[in-house]
């Protein structure tokens, strides 16, 4: 955190000054470790084993916050008797189809009192086709949608039923003993138990613990399950929805949270509405019902209003009830259009053009060579950036020019490089990890021809529409009917000439939403109407322009307001600073403790009592804790007074996820795709459902049991240095930053240096099946070998900030990674791999490819494809059989899926 988020780290330092104990779990000793009381080195890629061990510690010793767990989580919910856990299936859950490598999750569902026929309209849609879920990264929708399960599953609040989630969880993690953690993670039992004690002793009624992770945690083939493991722990210990608790994702750039809220993703629309699918969403109703999940609890019941307001924001007056609010104008997805699929499609000649904005995939994305070869096979490429980055110059100076794979004279891609305005040169908002929007004023004019993204896309759209004006071609209607009318401001001459800067505040007002007839900005998303009388571009942001005031621009001093500081910026939804904060009070609505009082029920307030506190209650203001839903209710009405997790189908925090995840209802330890170790916990080596692209240009290093696994004997990982920003596009070109870390280097332990003959400050190169890169050797005790499964493993660390351009240049660590993706969200495994390290510089020119090919041949990766499913044949068959049984019992609709 101190390395990549030094400004946020000030609060850790502040806590330390007040006596907090800091423990840092990280493969290497970093700037964060330097200030921690204890550094716990861990093997890269073994985090689920580590967290699973803590979950086991909590459950074995009954250290969970029982009152919280019983009332606010699904611990008491009974799981279907057809569910079979990984322990009985060699690392697979029940319902595995070895052909498609996906699960039929029918057997993962809750037991229900309802009849089978009803099981459940709400469950049916989402539990369906996992092949398609993986293709479309459908897990991202569940990020906010939660599981759309039955509102009224069977529960045993004594937690004694052998199939209640609590007992299922307890059995699932029983294997993760301190001994197993030591064996798998290389963490001593003393260190491990110190973490267990610190976490549990600092949780409960009187105290809360925050879990803070940076996004490297997500970049694994089991990345989503890493976060899930953290969520399970935080729920068990009662740390969600309470002050000082929660799970904080420290994002890699400014406004990454904003770029998922109003997404730059192929499968999502603003406010986490799904991108319509060509096969499933033929009509507006299909689309809305798939979000709404009739029968489930919660605020997604209003999805119709959210979706129609978005369509109205896009197409304005053209969107009417008669034409389904122009739903047919919406593009549809047909499968995997993720960034890595797109890159491989570029190599295969299936993509013509590409826009890059503030992104430098030539050096910043996994498998740099594939990225560059892909971009070299386009008709055109638009790059908007602050500097002439590698993604704009790859055709003339990339490593592939040296190897002869790209010939500048013959490269067909026409590159259009546009200078972009930086964040201080344009107005707008950043949304940070607390979901807080903060408005930025433009401080200075952008230099030269540099312009904002808003300017670029507004005028690009305007010019395209002018070009198409008068067209009567049906396919041009979506563009011509767009509401594309933003007021321009800035330099009067430019405005007069039609080239002014669109008002970002006008865009914010549209995002917020307003009444069409009067223009009155909406105050809350509950004012959104499904009849076209209101419009709004992102329902979760409604309220940011409440009363016509830019709430994101508020800057009231913390000294002049409550400790929650509600008047600094604006947080979605409805300016709530802590989500699900109903959980900060006990089931009767009283604070769990005076020390942690935050939001509570005041029976004296209003007509018949109200939720009050420092923050905006994340609950219906006048719904008392004693409220119980009437029989047959759904949606908001079905949320009971003790259901704090109002976006979940059952109102409860999910310790066990019956649907929404492609790779299983509970996190289980799988080895990284490339690992020098066999999975000690199961026969199933890696995530069996991971997304793979098996091609000659995307080979993976072999894993043990293969005779050649020792060709790549070391584990490597990459991350950032404080001195640089991501792939260096904003730091390598600036003198004052570039000089701080002027060269690419490779950190190794003294022991590995001895073993491989590496000299401090000499050169070395690192080799994988994809490429070989070089760097200066940094021998340091900050890296230390670990003892894993009884033998010593060396870990190598590299920063990934360099490329061939800029004031300081060097090889890109991202060239070493292949493409293997998490099946839920299609994020790449770019934080762990295996490699070899050798002294000296790498070969140059065509010799480089020969050298790498030699390694590939020696590793056997040419003829021998690493098997993904390694659980025993018997386990695979039995897992599959459960699926067959499940079909008969519960879900006849499943037959037609796939």
């Amino acid at each position: 955190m101190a390395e990549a988020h030094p400004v946020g780290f000030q609060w850790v330092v502040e806590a330390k000054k007040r006596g907090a104990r800091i423990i840092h779990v990280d493969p290497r000793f970093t700037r964060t470790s330097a200030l921690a009381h204890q550094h716990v080195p861990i093997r890269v890629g073994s985090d689920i084993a580590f967290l699973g061990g803590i979950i086991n510690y909590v459950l074995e010793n009954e250290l969970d916050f029982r009152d919280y767990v019983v009332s606010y989580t699904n611990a008491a919910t009974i799981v279907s008797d057809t569910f079979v856990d990984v322990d009985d299936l060699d690392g697979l859950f029940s319902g595995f189809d070895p052909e498609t490598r996906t699960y039929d999750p029918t057997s993962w569902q809750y037991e229900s009192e309802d009849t089978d026929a009803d099981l459940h309209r709400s469950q049916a849609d989402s539990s369906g086709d996992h092949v398609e879920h993986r293709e479309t990264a459908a897990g991202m929708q569940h990020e906010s949608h939660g599981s759309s399960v039955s509102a009224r599953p069977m529960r045993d609040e004594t937690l004694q039923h052998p199939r209640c989630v609590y007992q299922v969880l307890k059995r699932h993690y029983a294997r993760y003993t301190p001994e197993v953690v030591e064996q798998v993670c290389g963490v001593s039992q003393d260190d491990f138990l110190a973490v267990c004690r610190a976490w549990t002793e600092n949780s409960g009624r009187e105290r809360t613990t925050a879990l803070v992770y940076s996004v490297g945690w997500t970049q694994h083939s089991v990345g989503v399950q890493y976060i899930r493991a953290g969520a399970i722990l935080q729920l068990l210990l009662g740390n969600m929805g309470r002050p000082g608790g929660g799970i904080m994702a420290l994002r890699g750039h400014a406004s990454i949270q904003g770029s998922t809220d109003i997404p730059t993703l192929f499968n999502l629309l603003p406010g986490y509405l799904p991108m319509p699918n060509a096969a499933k969403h033929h009509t507006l109703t299909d689309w809305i019902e798939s979000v709404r999940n009739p029968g489930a609890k919660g605020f997604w019941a209003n999805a119709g209003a959210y979706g129609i307001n978005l369509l109205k924001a896009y197409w304005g007056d053209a969107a009417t009830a008669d034409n389904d609010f122009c739903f047919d104008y919406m593009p549809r997805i047909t499968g995997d259009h993720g960034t890595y699929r797109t890159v491989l499609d570029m190599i295969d000649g299936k993509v013509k053009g590409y826009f890059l904005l503030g992104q430098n995939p030539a050096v910043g994305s996994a498998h740099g060579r594939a990225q560059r070869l892909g971009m070299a096979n386009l008709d055109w490429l638009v790059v908007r950036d602050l500097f002439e980055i590698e993604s704009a110059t790859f055709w003339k100076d990339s490593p592939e020019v040296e190897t002869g794979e790209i010939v500048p004279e013959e490269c067909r891609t026409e590159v259009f490089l546009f200078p972009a305005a930086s964040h201080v040169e344009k107005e707008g908002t950043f949304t940070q990890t607390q979901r807080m929007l903060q408005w930025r004023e433009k401080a200075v004019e952008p230099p030269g021809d540099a312009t904002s993204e808003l300017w670029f896309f507004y005028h690009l759209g305007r010019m395209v529409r002018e070009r198409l004006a008068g067209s009567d071609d049906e396919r041009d209607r979506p563009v011509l009917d767009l509401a594309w009318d933003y007021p321009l401001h800035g330099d009067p001459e430019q405005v007069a000439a039609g080239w002014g800067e669109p008002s970002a505040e006008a865009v914010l007002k549209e995002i917020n939403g307003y009444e069409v007839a009067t223009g009155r900005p909406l105050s809350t998303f509950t004012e959104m109407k499904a009849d076209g009388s209101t419009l709004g571009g992102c329902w979760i942001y409604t309220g940011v322009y409440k009363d016509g005031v830019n709430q994101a621009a508020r800057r009231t001093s913390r000294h002049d307001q409550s400790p929650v500081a509600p008047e600094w910026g604006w947080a979605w939804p409805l300016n709530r600073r802590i989500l699900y904060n109903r959980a900060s009070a006990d089931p009767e609505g009283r604070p769990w403790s005076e020390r942690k009082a935050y939001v509570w029920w005041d029976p004296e307030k209003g007509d018949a009592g109200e939720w009050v506190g420092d923050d905006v209650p994340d609950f219906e203001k006048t719904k008392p804790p004693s409220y119980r839903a009437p029989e047959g209710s759904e949606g908001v009405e079905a949320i009971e007074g003790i259901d704090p997790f109002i976006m979940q189908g059952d109102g409860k925090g999910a310790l066990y996820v019956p649907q929404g995840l492609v790779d299983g209802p509970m996190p289980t330890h799988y080895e990284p795709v490339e690992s020098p170790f066999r999975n000690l916990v199961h026969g199933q080596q890696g995530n069996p459902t991971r997304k793979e692209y098996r091609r000659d240009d995307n080979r993976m290093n072999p894993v043990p049991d293969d005779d050649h696994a020792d060709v790549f004997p070391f584990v490597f990982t990459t991350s950032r240095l404080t001195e640089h920003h991501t792939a260096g596009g904003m730091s390598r070109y600036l003198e004052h930053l570039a000089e701080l870390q002027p060269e690419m280097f490779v950190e190794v332990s003294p022991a590995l240096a001895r073993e491989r003959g590496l000299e401090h400050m000499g050169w070395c190169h690192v080799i994988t099946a994809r490429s070989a890169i070089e760097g200066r050797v940094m021998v340091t005790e900050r890296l230390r070998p670990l003892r894993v499964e009884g033998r010593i493993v060396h870990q190598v660390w590299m920063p990934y900030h360099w490329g061939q351009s800029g004031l300081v240049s060097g090889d890109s660590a991202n060239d070493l990674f292949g493409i293997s993706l998490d099946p839920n969200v299609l994020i790449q495994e770019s934080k762990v791999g295996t490699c070899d390290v050798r002294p000296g510089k790498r070969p140059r020119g065509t010799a480089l490819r020969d050298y790498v090919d030699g390694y590939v041949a020696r590793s056997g990766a040419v003829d021998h494809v690493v098997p993904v499913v390694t659980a025993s044949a018997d386990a695979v068959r039995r897992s599959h059989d459960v699926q067959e049984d499940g079909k008969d019992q519960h879900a006849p609709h499943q037959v037609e899926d796939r």
Partner: protein
Amino acid sequence: MIGRNSLFGPLDPAPDAGYEAPPPRKGFFTDTSVCIGCKACEVACKEWNDVPENLFQMLGTSYDNSHSLNANQWRHVAFIERPGRSTAPDQPDRLADPATPPVDIGMPTVGAPPSGVPDEAKPDFQWLMSSDVCKHCTHAACLDVCPTGSLFRSEFGTVVVQDDICNGCGYCVAACPYGVIDRRTGPEGDPSVGIAQKCTLCYDRLTDGQRPACAAACPTESIVYGDVEQLRQQANERVAALHEQGVMDARLYGNDPEDGVGGTGAFFLLLDEPEVYGLPPDPVVTTKDLPHMFTRAGMAGTALLIGAALSFVRRRS
């Protein structure tokens, strides 16, 4: 204007320099126990003061690529990788193991340290970080020796170079007991090449009521700017708090008005001996002995004169 302690001993420098009713003396308290080595101070300093590039070279001294304070580096963050002194109970006795160095003398480790302890058995070691800066001494030798008046004592008690007056003689470079001030050697074309350069404590910001750039940029309040009197008190409290938390190595450096430079305007909380951070353990203002020397030189001169006079007397007689 020369007072009893003008060259040595406790003193409030601004009134001593002739300011009438100056503002309270300003300085830095750099608490290295919360420094995270982010180098924001280095960058903010260079941005505000337009300090050009320094080395552009990887040095291999941990994460320090700035090397030292010099004309192009007015803030410098040192990184010291140091093996822990405690020996874990399950480890072989270091002294009994002939392969291990017998005694850790606390010198900074540069690059790969030799080590015979199996790596997996290493105890936690320390990674010390510290942002160094001009000390703005109570008795500033650079100022004392400057023949042009380019270096002056500001009303804030700080020591500042005036680029347009400095003639580049370099007396100050030799005079500084910390090796802070230096003449700029590059880059070519820079107007200040040949001119003595160092931290001004952002004199141009102070006169506008603002904090120095490095203190404003420091995310963890490792660099605190304020009235020296208050900072000294704050530093004492911080040391006491750290001692209470069991960090017995915490100590102050430069806070003592009785030390060799009369205490510094920029002083430090360190977690080890000053030498480990590359700081002189007992700096003394190089002009301390000027009165002595003057007296002695005077005596010698007088003796010479008397001798000469006597010789004439004798000749006459």
